[in-house]
């Protein structure tokens, strides 16, 4: 016989996948980002994928979503090639640095600062 607790757990995991998945898509198009922050826990807790694989898989989820969202903005007339290219160029350099740093620097301290700044930025959006 299947235990009741296990069934509840299974349903909760499925529900987490559905909810976080839909929210990731909606956040990505409405805010222009942040979907990855929902896709990672969706994979980690909803589908029991380990942290590293969850991060890797989340990128594959976010790629088509971001293309679709970017196209939607462009179609509605929101785009600026110079601005896009400049920031992208910086992001490519930064992405390479980040990937190298990841292997050498412990993430702990940096993530604390990062999340604190995130909360601060959130407050700035409200006031």
């Amino acid at each position, binding site marked *: 016989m299947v235990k009741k607790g296990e069934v509840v757990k299974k349903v909760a995991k499925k529900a987490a996948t559905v909810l976080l998945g839909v929210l990731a898509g909606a956040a990505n198009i409405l805010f222009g980002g942040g979907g990855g*922050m929902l896709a990672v826990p969706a994979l980690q807790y*909803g589908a029991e994928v380990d942290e590293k694989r969850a991060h890797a898989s989340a990128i594959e989820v976010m790629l088509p979503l971001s293309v*679709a*969202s*970017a196209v939607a903005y462009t179609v509605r007339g929101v785009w600026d090639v110079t601005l896009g290219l400049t920031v992208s160029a910086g992001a490519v350099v930064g992405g390479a640095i980040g*990937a190298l740093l990841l292997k050498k620097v412990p993430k702990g301290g940096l993530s604390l600062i990062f999340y604190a700044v995130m909360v601060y930025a959130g407050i700035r959006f409200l006031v």
Partner: protein
Amino acid sequence: MRIVWLLLAGVVGGVLGGMGLGGGTLLIPILIFLLDVPYPLAAWVNLVAFLPTALVAGVLHAKNKMVEWRRVGVLLAFAAVGVLIGFFLAPALSETVIRRAFGIFLIVFGSCSLFFVFVGYFKKKHDKRNILH
């Protein structure tokens, strides 16, 4: 001079994204508050800036067999529904509403993540002590 700041903003977002911290969530506020990029354009820039790096990372992860493709497919199906909802909802929402929602999103996720980082830190310390005894 502005172009240098925009490049730097991209670098900061890229570093954080490359470390798997979610650089986009910080690149958008940097563009809006520090560089006066209007809201919808900042969102578009972030989406576009994510693509080249993510493409490289995506190919590398796939090559290293780090991707759970079946899970990706399932999640993508639900996320596509979310994108559609967002697409049709967006024109009905004012910029103020979206900015507030994003603010709440950042506060909720920032504080949840801070909480988990602390829990992880104390758990590690606790486990170490248990091993010693």
